């Protein structure tokens, strides 16, 4: 089953969870061929009951030690703008749609999401434009996100410290 995985990391993002479970948005998701919707709601106060959405298979949970498996099974990841969540989804090679929480003040996390969007690594919207984005998005424009290279850092330090 083609799956959409929604993640808010360790934050609370009720607006996203509510928006993504409206019948309008669920219809948009289904129209794209997705049949399963998995919600990771974090600290949010909205935790939909399993199968509380008609027309789509729904699962919801707050936290897991690792969401790697959920990300792996997903065909599309819808995430808050948290770096960890974004990097995890992109690192797994998944198409990523970031929903910006415009209620957060001084949201420095936006810097990364904006840059990654600029570089075509993810798509980007707000809760109010989520449904429309799901209807019209073109995932084929997304570029793979190459992993970082910590070995460059290690080499630098080794040279600086004279480590062989």
């Amino acid at each position, binding site marked *: 089953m083609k799956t959409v995985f929604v993640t808010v*990391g*360790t*934050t609370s993002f009720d607006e996203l969870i509510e928006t993504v479970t409206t019948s309008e948005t669920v219809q948009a998701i289904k129209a794209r061929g997705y049949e399963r919707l998995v919600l990771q709601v974090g*600290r949010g106060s909205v935790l939909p009951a399993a199968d509380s959405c008609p027309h789509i298979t729904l699962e919801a949970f707050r936290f897991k030690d690792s969401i790697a498996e959920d990300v792996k099974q997903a065909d599309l990841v819808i995430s808050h703008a*948290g*770096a*960890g*969540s974004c*990097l995890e989804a992109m690192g797994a090679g998944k198409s990523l749609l970031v929903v910006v929480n415009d209620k957060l003040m001084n949201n*420095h*996390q936006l*810097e*990364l999401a*904006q*840059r990654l969007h600029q570089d075509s690594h993810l798509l980007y919207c707000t809760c109010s434009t989520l449904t429309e984005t799901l209807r019209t998005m073109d995932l084929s424009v997304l570029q793979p996100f190459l*992993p*970082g*290279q*910590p*070995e*460059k*850092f*290690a080499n*630098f*330090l*080794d040279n*600086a*410290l*004279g*480590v*062989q």
Partner: protein
Amino acid sequence: MGLLVHRSFCIFASVYSGELKCLAAVVDVFVKTSSDVSGGHTTEILRLVESLSGTYSPRHYVIADTDKMSEEKILTFEKSRACSGPNSQFTICRIPRSREVHQSWSSSVASTLKAMQYSLPLMFRVRPDLVLCNGPGTCVPVCAAGLLLGLLGIKKVLLVYVESICRVQTLSLTGKILYPLSDFFFVQWSSLKDRYPKSLFLGRIV
């Protein structure tokens, strides 16, 4: 509210230089990271430590506050490291956190000074050659203690700061504080390199 608290931890590692052997051999690397509740920063710092060779050992991790999540990540990380090679000595230490998210300036100074009551004796005891940090709060008392060791002529402590990959256009508060004080200050986006010319840019390293 507790969930908004920045947790930080530091790790030390020891660098053994094959050439110098028993003389100036034991070098402690002090690595500092912030593990806020998202854990993203913890992940970043552990990726960096993972890339370091076995000569960076022992590693002392300092966790601010009762941060179970970071402790678990460290234990998991060190366990997997133990499987792959020697030099897996590490310890985990705790010091009070210096600053909470949105904490006022004046109370941040007070809590930073309080944290220094722990970071100073810790640094004096361990005497690291290298401090590695990547986040807010607790980096400051640790680096301050490191600088003090140098100023007092006790030990030259290299301060290595790696700004988070989250930071594309602006530095974190800790980054701004440590930019003039660090020996090596890494940024991961060219836009920051342009704004902070003394920083080092090797591309994305996590």
